[in-house]
């Protein structure tokens, strides 16, 4: 018998009586979160920055003031060509991205309870981008924020690779001292497009 059948046979013999799968009604966790302030507060607590902006046009200038010394930058948003200092077509191997200073990505889903922002690879062409970049900038509309993870998963359907990112990369592996900037991004900024100007 091959290993697969061996394992499956043994499980079949040893598993307990079947039991029903419970139905989860996420409304029992609802405490009426005010999602925008809750998202902002949580993201700041995990080391991220939140900057409200009132129009897409403000993205560019905001970026310049936030990270003035960036040289190698890329945005995957529409109408932000002036930000891009190179084209992805010129990248032969993902390794060539090692010097990337800023990556800017639009996200359509963020979670208030934990400051996490969801992006999947329909938003960025090379999977390593959000991890290898030194600084990560998300552009999010206020209406994209949901209260809890349960609501987030209701929205996540088709993707090949996707990730929730909550704050910059970090570690506390040396004597429990928190250090921001481990193997991934050194900083994370969310440009939050305020509701009344959302098209």
């Amino acid at each position, binding site marked *: 018998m091959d*290993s697969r059948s061996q394992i499956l046979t043994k499980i079949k013999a040893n*598993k307990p009586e079947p039991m029903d799968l419970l139905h989860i009604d996420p409304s*029992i*966790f609802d405490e009426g979160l005010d999602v925008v302030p809750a998202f902002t507060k949580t993201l700041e607590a995990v080391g991220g920055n939140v900057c409200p902006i009132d129009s897409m046009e403000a993205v560019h200038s905001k970026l310049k003031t936030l990270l003035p010394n960036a040289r190698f930058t890329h945005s995957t948003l529409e109408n932000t060509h002036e930000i891009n200092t190179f084209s992805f077509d010129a990248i032969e191997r993902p390794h060539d991205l090692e010097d990337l200073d800023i990556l800017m990505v639009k996200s359509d889903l963020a979670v208030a309870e934990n400051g996490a922002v969801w992006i999947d*690879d329909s938003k960025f062409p090379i999977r390593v981008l959000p991890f290898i970049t030194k600084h990560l900038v998300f552009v999010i509309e206020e209406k994209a924020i949901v209260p809890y993870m349960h609501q987030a998963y209701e929205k996540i359907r088709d993707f090949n690779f996707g990730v929730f990112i909550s704050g910059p990369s970090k570690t506390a592996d040396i004597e429990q001292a928190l250090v921001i900037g481990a193997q991934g991004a050194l900083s994370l900024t969310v440009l939050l497009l305020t509701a009344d100007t959302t098209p």
Partner: protein
Amino acid sequence: MSHPKLANIFNEDEKKVDWHDKALWFVRHKRDLSAHKVKGWETLREFGHQIKAHTLANLDQYLIEFEKNALSNGIEVHWATNAEEHNKIVHRILKECQAKKVVKSKSMLTEECHLNPFLEERGIEVIDTDLGERIVQLAKESPSHIVLPAIHKNRHEVDDLFQQHLNTKPCNGDPQYLTQKARKHLREKFINADAAITGVNFAIAETGGFVVCTNEGNADMGAHLAPVHIACMGMEKLIPKQDHLGVFLRLLARSATGQPITTYSSHFKTPAKGLKMHIVIVDNGRSEQLGKPDFRASLHCIRCGACMNTCPIYRRSGGHSYNYTIPGPIGSILSPGKDLKKHSSLPFASTLCGSCSDVCPVKIDIHSQLYKWRQIITKEMKQPMLKRKSMKIMGSLFSNPTQFNRFAKFCRWALRNLPKSILYAKPNVWGKSRELPKGPKMSFTEWHQNRENTKRMKNNG
């Protein structure tokens, strides 16, 4: 060596033990603050428990569903009955793609299978990329905690290690500087890796995808840069539906470190264009444990480490004293199932206070399982003379109230009157580094009776 002996070694450095104890208690405290902020936390734990129990009851079906979906996503699926087969499969994949340099993110499973030495003996370089794991790898040690692998090392030890291996300058243990240097060192490893190995936090039957959680971003740096990604999972990592991640991702990081979620929760479903992705599903004793009704709930574990952080024994004896890949309370109920004789001292490394069960995000009855293992071990294995005899005597004492009262009276007198040399003599292990209480004149029963009598007299008078 038994747990008490190894714990003694850890306790030689009293200052370090104090630090270790406090540091972990602080993590436990952060867990409390974070959990208490969530409305319905207890319900969430109950959901976690139920989903896992349901999955185990249909594990074969869900594994088949998972395999089918993973295959149609373009992932290659492998099955390993034990550690050796797992290692051979990984080695075969690496050989096929001529990989010489491998980066690995945290995976307790590959530790359990001793994958690193297996690959190294066959000429493959394996670099652990989680900072804590890299530290213990450089020190040629094993992780002492499943979430905080280097919690037993202080900053100066890390400083020395890095000077020796990474050519850093002496920095008086500056964590910022050391982390920066590690980042540079690991970047180079990521860029040059031929293959990446990761663990799996959750595998989803419904989608054939899997989720890996890290704070450092090391799993993603490895998996997306290397041409081949091998994900190794214990078969109990399965959950039925993607929606269930909503429950588990809310529980995991809060229980582990008090964070609302890990920095990265990466959802892998298909390999990137032109790259290869493999999943190795490992049994290695799990199906055996599944067949033990008293102990199967130990397979619910999501490896958050909360039971370690809260355990008064773990905090004061250190992870290495358990001499098992998974230390602490959960390790003490998993390990006897694998080798009862070798790990027979572990279920006794507990006060049975139940704190582990209280914090466990998937509500494993850890302390009752510890108690059940004790019963099995005492029956099946010869206990030390002194313990056997004293247990017998205690047994007969406790079963006879008159005798017990007489004995207790003697003990109270002895605690007040006998010289220290006798009270703290060697056979009395309770007197070791402990101050014995001053024996009270009355027993609790006597005190209570007196009080009732006085009350009655007052009422009558």
